[in-house]
């Protein structure tokens, strides 16, 4: 009974319809929160007494770094659900998350590097967070490469789920080991890419941007998942009807 309910909720057709209605609202919420976040982050928040205005990169870098981890966890969780309960929709969400997560990681890396230039004088320092993000990017690329290499998409989705689960166990270990390595090999003199002694005026935009990125992820993952559903269900009646009425 319980199972049936979930399988119906997770039926591709139902998902396609509901997500189509949800996406515009999420997108609007994203734009509003982002505008508020940008206003507080770029206009209202005062310059940092050490880093001047350069710290404002934090409002992108830190939420992007958070998202890179968050999306990986979502991907692994969805993958596990797909594996255990054979819910196809969970597989779809998992694989749709992979490339978005990779983009967030890329964004965190690039903005971290740009933020580091005025702070350290070079574009790249083996800072703990940047190094972790770099390895995380490799993990994401591995997931994407594996998915693309396997022809049968159902098999591919299940293989990816295993890989994501292995990855999600390793991420905390990698994170810890890199932190540890970082403290060994660099004196504490190098300022880390970290929230400057955080003040409420900086915390508000940081949290707003974090929410904004979550909303963004929510509607973009739905958009990607819809494409994936169409692709997988292309031979069913409802998809053909849909395609021909457009």
């Amino acid at each position, binding site marked *: 009974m319980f199972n049936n309910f979930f399988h119906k909720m997770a039926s591709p057709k139902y998902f396609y319809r509901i997500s189509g209605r949800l996406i515009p609202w999420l997108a609007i919420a994203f734009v509003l929160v982002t505008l508020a976040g940008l206003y507080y982050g770029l206009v209202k928040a005062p310059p940092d007494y050490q880093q001047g205005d350069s710290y404002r990169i934090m409002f992108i870098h830190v939420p992007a770094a958070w998202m890179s981890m968050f999306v990986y966890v979502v991907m692994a969780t969805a993958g596990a659900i797909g594996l255990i309960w054979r819910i196809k929709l969970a597989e779809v969400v998992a694989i749709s998350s992979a490339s978005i997560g990779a983009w967030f990681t890329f964004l965190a890396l690039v903005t971290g590097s740009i933020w580091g230039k005025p702070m350290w004088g070079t574009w790249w320092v083996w800072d703990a967070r940047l190094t972790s993000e770099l390895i995380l990017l490799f993990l994401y690329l591995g997931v994407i490469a594996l998915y693309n290499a396997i022809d049968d998409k159902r098999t591919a989705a299940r293989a990816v789920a295993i890989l994501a689960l292995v990855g999600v166990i390793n991420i905390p270990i990698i994170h810890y080991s890199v932190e540890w390595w970082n403290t060994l090999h660099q004196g504490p003199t190098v300022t880390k890419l970290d929230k400057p002694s955080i003040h409420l005026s900086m915390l508000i935009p940081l949290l707003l941007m974090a929410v904004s990125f979550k909303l963004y992820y929510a509607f973009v993952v739905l*958009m990607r998942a819809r494409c994936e559903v169409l692709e997988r269900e292309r031979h069913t009646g409802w998809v053909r009807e849909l*395609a021909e009425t457009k």
Partner: protein
Amino acid sequence: MSLNEFFNMGGYAFYVWTSYGIALLVLLINVILPLRQRKKLLGDIARAARRARRDTT
């Protein structure tokens, strides 16, 4: 605060605006890609359906 000051970002204009620019670009790409993919997919599926119908009649 003047508009000039705002864009100058205390001398860090290049770094700050490049970061925000790249962020905007990345966010846009991730919206445009699925939109285009969906349009292409629906087109492909419709064409395939028409072809299938022509073949059977």
